[in-house]
């Protein structure tokens, strides 16, 4: 039962440890390590620890060649959540509004179908995927690349709080571990390891999301990539993934089918006639209100009304004044 000691030792020495080291230093540390009081300290902070040798340790994660010694966990959900079928949605931090909107749509629809959405709490695609899952009142798990007691990035502290209400925040790292660039690829292997499939929404070449995809491939998991414009640098990574054989993702249903999950019957919400006209005008490319006024011949007030209706029906999403149809076009 040395998992916790191993994790605490890694934190103490600021290193990455998954196997018991032969160093004398570790032996000394272990002799002086008071596991009971450490656990009490975790409990006092509302944290839990799930060791590799515990029965609840996710089976999928064990399949990695270097599974973490254990996971620190916070959040209201039980650790059984980690064993439920899950999909990782990852991508660029500096994503485009297209990437953000697709990530949110996927997060929402996958969570609505009962899958757990896993991501890394980062800005951009990660955060949007979490938000989408929360919108659907689904479960979502955030995997941190720093100590479990930190919210990183700080701007997502509130999001982390909302995730904890109904889901989990997990980390391989003990409280007090500072975020460091080299820890994030290790974090990505946990994301890929926990998920049955990994979706890359938007990634540049050499993006961290591609590392996640590599880990997923290594573990023999399904990898999906969302096709993007071939002229956009933000899509170069995902398009390269597609070229080497990733499955193109055209709707959340593709993932559900691959995982054998029944899609939730969810009839598209009906919208009025004016709204349908506006939606048709949006089907080829995103447009602003002024463009829609020109395209439909409606006045600005009616277009605004229609857009709000479509937005409530979650058929369009807005960013910086541009509206985009977010249901995949058949």
């Amino acid at each position, binding site marked *: 039962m040395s998992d916790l000691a191993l994790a605490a030792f890694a934190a103490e020495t600021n290193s990455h440890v998954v196997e018991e080291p032969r160093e004398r230093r570790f032996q000394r540390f272990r002799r002086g390590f008071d596991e009971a009081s450490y656990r009490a300290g975790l409990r006092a902070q509302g944290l839990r620890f799930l060791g590799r040798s515990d029965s609840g340790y996710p089976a999928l994660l064990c399949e990695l060649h270097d599974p973490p010694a254990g996971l620190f966990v916070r959040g209201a959900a039980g650790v059984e959540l980690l064993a439920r079928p899950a999909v990782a949605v990852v991508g660029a931090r500096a994503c485009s*509004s297209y990437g953000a909107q697709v990530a949110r749509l996927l997060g929402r629809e996958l969570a609505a179908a009962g899958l757990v959405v896993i991501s890394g709490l980062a800005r951009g695609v990660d955060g949007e995927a979490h938000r989408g899952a929360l919108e659907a009142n689904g479960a979502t798990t955030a995997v941190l690349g720093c100590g479990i007691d930190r919210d990183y990035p700080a701007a997502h502290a509130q999001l982390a709080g909302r995730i904890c209400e109904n889901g989990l925040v997990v980390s391989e790292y003990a409280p007090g571990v500072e975020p460091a660039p080299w820890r994030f690829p290790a974090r990505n292997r946990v994301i890929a390891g926990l998920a049955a499939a990994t979706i890359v929404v938007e990634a540049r070449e050499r993006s961290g999301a591609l590392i996640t995809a590599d880990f997923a491939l290594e573990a023999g998991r399904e990898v999906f990539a969302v096709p993007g414009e071939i002229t956009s640098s933000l899509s170069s990574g995902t398009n390269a993934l597609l070229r080497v054989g990733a499955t193109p993702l055209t709707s959340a249903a593709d993932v559900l089918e691959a995982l054998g999950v029944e899609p939730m019957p969810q009839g598209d919400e009906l919208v009025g006639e004016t709204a349908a006209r506006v939606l048709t005008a949006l089907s080829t490319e995103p447009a*602003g209100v002024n463009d829609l006024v*020109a395209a439909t011949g409606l006045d600005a007030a009616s277009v605004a009304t229609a857009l709000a209706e479509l937005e409530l029906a979650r058929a369009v999403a*807005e960013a*910086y004044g*541009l509206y985009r149809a977010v249901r995949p076009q058949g």
Partner: protein
Amino acid sequence: MLARTVTHALVGLDARRVEVEAHLQLGVPAFAIVGLADRACQEAKERVRSGIASAELEWPTRRITVNLAPAELRKEGSGFDLPIALAVLAASRQVPPEALGGHAAVGELALDGRLRPVGGVLAAAEGARQAGLSHLLCAAESAAEAALAGVQPVPLRHLAEAVAYLRGEWVPPPPDPITAASNGNGATPPVPDLADVRGQERARRALELAAAGAHHLLLGGPPGTGKTMLARRLPGILPRLPPEQALEVTRIHSVAGLLAPGRPLVTVPPFRAPHHTASVASIVGGGSSPRPGEASLAHHGVLFLDEFGEFPRNALEALRQPLEDGAVSIARVGGKIVFPARFQLVATMNLCPCGARGDPAAECSCSAARLAAYRDKLSRALLDRFDLVVTVPRPRARELAGSPGEASVAVRERVVPARERARGDPLRRSTPAEELLSRAVERLPLSARGRARVARVAHTAALLAGVEEVAPEHVAEALSYRSPSELGMP
């Protein structure tokens, strides 16, 4: 020999009665002004002496003491020249002292004895009326302004005329009554017309809603898309000021010395556009003897802050009090001064420091840290005041080549009745509208404050539509104006 005249000193926007006493005594000829007179006021000595000589009157070779009472009140400015001169003349019996009864006086003297107008005559005239004085001696240019307060102005061009009038040798011509012709539409300074804006239907609609509901408006978008151009056209579609508001605005502008000659009453809602390098005091008012700032000068009008994100943070935060209370209060050792500041805030800002966000043709080069810093500058508390937030995209070529937009006059014809209806009972929301609003609160990230904001805009949309009930489409339209905190996302 002693004589007295009455004038008024300004404390903020209020006029306080000041008695100017002149006492001539035997002794070495001298001239002293006592009673907390500031520098401009002390210099009155030289102007008064020259003015009296130029009017071919006699400067008494006595020991002259002028006291400005009450002595504890600070007196500032040059408006005391005329009352001091008249007090000296009355004390030396060159004008009959009893003729000064019922008269207040205000005005600056030129060295040749001519009278120059000063700021704050309206406030001084109101002070005179409240003190039961019937006439105000003032410069001819200020006469129309004084008449607004309901006292009889005595328009003077020269000190000699004042003396002739008080001796009963001269009757001043009655001032021109303030008519629509001298003050109405024809004479107002030209406001740029909305017809100049091509396309931008979205922002035009937002401008119309802002005008009809007096909503604060935030225009976001990349540079060069016409945000400023649109904002400058807002006064042209606002209704004229009703008389009591016009008087309030005029009082502030009078104190600031901003009234246009010959057009004393401000009937067009003021439009103030301070630059983003402006100091806090110049925006909300201040100074050792507090003067109204831009926020007060925009009272009942528009305060336009171009490049909102570039203003110093403390200047923006200082605006929160007037946005909340409709007034700025400035505390000084001598007491608190309140300037009204119920303005409509219109602001423009880029969506990121480099300005490329929201422009499909450019790629934003801002780092996450720079973006966060830009966003942090504007507190949510301040951003939440904006009921209407629209992004103004780069116009397409065909929009610019299209026909001119609707003229301001046509838009104002819709705004004016909506504003009038807004004074009545608020409209009820229909049940479907209520349901839509509740659904939106559940589905969108909409706070309680956001809900109230949507309800206000929906109400204005219904008023503009001329219907008796707020319908779902009005709520839906209101929902489409984003909450400002979302501007910086994701």
